[in-house]
């Protein structure tokens, strides 16, 4: 049996294990281990599984993940997300559909310090949904705004998805962060435009509120959300100017979040303990996934499957455009049922040689993949974030799906823009196609 065939069988077995609900990181480890054993023998495999977890995880860049997770967990557990929503609602909440737009803005701001989709939508949903209900907003429209807003979480830096992509492809994480910034802001603008159009057609879905705020009150609302946004600006500005590495930005951001929470008297021992355990849990999940991915990658490399795929695509005469079309459908489909982290770790090592062979900019490709996965997370019938949000908020799934439909349409328009104008992603990252 040729190594390529063993590699393909390995991928099929991996998919079977994943659909049998085996934890993805361990399914990858199991297949990687057995496949490597068949191809390279037990002695090498034993050394590989003994050394790989240490040698691959003891990576300075990998520390970026838990540090940004810690920053997000501090902000989430100390209720600073509520301040972000209150600030946004004081500034734009009184206009028609304003609370929904404020939710999207707060999601974008929260995303800037959190980096996780369902965490963003649920945090904001818990805060914004009761408010929107109070002002007689249409339930499906309100739920749609919260769930769609949550997806901005993995586009606006710091994004855990970009960190994982960067670690696997060896593309600069700083560049990926910068590349996600304009698309993330544009995404929020697209959602707010959608809200404006919807409330123009159906004014009773998001009525204007009678509450008016003075400039003093508006500025006063920046007391806590201002510093939170400042953390983001310093961290990302520092990366852009080359003052910090992403790891340093993560450490500084987490440190600043703790200090702000302490000054605001929001971080007591129970919150701190909860934050630590939550961060450890998320880190443990990521590390198991990464360790599995590296072992699987070793097997896939010796099987030469990525090169087989790359050669086959070259033989088929697929150009960049056709390849990207396949990528669009593939990741939209994958995003419907698989977590973005799992999908990136599973597919990128296999697909990357082809991306490089076709001369596609890996930074731009990363942005497109993350964007596609975001859309997949809220696309019917299987959008994972919709189920998570509906379960957490006790709103029927069908209601959320109906509410999210116009936002998905906006997502596709936004995706087209990113596909046809790569400079939107590459301008800040300083690269060309």
């Amino acid at each position, binding site marked *: 049996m040729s190594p390529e065939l063993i590699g393909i069988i390995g991928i099929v077995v991996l998919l079977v294990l994943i659909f049998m*609900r085996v934890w993805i990181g361990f399914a990858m480890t199991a297949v990687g281990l057995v496949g490597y054993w068949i191809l390279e023998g037990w002695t090498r495999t034993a050394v590989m599984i003994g050394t790989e977890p240490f040698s691959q*995880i003891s990576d300075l860049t990998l520390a970026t993940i838990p*540090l940004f997770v810690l920053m997000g967990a501090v902000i989430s557990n100390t209720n600073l997300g509520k301040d972000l929503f209150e600030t946004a609602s004081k500034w734009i909440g009184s206009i028609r559909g304003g609370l929904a737009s404020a939710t999207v803005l707060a999601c974008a701001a929260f995303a800037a310090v959190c980096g996780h989709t369902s965490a963003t939508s649920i945090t904001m949903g818990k805060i914004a949904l009761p408010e929107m209900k109070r002002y007689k907003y249409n339930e499906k429209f309100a739920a749609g705004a919260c769930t769609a807003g949550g997806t901005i979480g993995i586009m606006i830096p710091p994004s855990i998805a970009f960190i994982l992509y960067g670690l696997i492809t060896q593309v600069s994480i700083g560049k990926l962060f910068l590349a996600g910034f304009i698309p993330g802001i544009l995404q929020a603008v697209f959602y707010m435009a959608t809200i404006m159009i919807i409330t123009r057609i159906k004014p009773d879905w998001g009525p204007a509120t009678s509450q008016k705020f003075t400039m003093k009150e508006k500025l006063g609302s920046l007391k806590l959300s201002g510093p939170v946004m400042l953390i983001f600006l310093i961290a990302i500005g520092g990366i852009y100017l080359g003052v*910090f590495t992403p790891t340093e930005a*993560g450490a500084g951001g987490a440190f600043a979040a703790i200090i702000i929470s302490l000054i605001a008297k929001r971080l007591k021992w129970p919150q701190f303990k909860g934050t630590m355990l939550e961060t450890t849990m998320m880190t*443990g999940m990521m590390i198991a996934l990464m360790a599995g991915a590296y072992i699987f990658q070793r097997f896939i490399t010796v099987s030469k499957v990525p090169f087989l795929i790359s050669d086959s695509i070259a033989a088929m005469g697929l150009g960049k455009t056709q390849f990207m079309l396949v990528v669009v459908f593939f990741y939209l489909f994958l995003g419907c049922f698989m977590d973005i982290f799992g999908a990136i770790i599973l597919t990128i090592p296999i697909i990357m040689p082809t991306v490089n062979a076709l001369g596609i900019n890996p930074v731009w490709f990363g942005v497109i993949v993350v964007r596609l996965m975001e859309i997949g997370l809220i696309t019917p019938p299987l959008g994972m974030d919709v189920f998570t949000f509906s379960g957490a908020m006790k709103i029927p799934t069908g209601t959320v799906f109906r509410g999210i439909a116009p936002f998905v349409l906006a997502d596709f328009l936004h995706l087209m823009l990113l596909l046809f104008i790569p400079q939107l992603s590459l301008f800040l990252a300083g690269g060309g196609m």
Partner: protein
Amino acid sequence: MNKFIKWFVSIPAIVAGSVLILIMLLTTLDVIMRFFFNAPITGSSEITQRFIIVAGFLGIGWCALNNQHIKVDILVGKLPPKGQKVFTIFNYLVVGIISALIGTQSFKQAALVKKMHVQSQLLGIPNFPFYYVVSVSYFILFITILFLLVMTILNKNPEVEDHES
């Protein structure tokens, strides 16, 4: 037993969290020293590279106990509880075998690395304790999985019951 396993797994998780706080403080201090005093902390990256092993791996058991490892539920989630139980047990068997294997091999590797005096270049930090951390972490995971497996067989795994209902 429930209380014991929670304690057994949460202690390493708290150690992992504390080490992460240390990484945060060290990195922030390094940036401040470099930026304001042009005097970065020597070998801070070497320390972080090793500490991330502790902060990362010691939490995998805690993550397992809380049923937080990433999985795809699309097919098995549609099965009746008894069918789901079979797949849950199968998952635990796969994870259990993998964790025992990596735990054992990392332990052997740690002994080898100790014998060979492998250490970091700048500060001379020995590598073997961190191989042991990897090994211990996977053994903690193994024990957690063993516990979850027994509880699932006895229909007493609350995480699984919640999930499957």
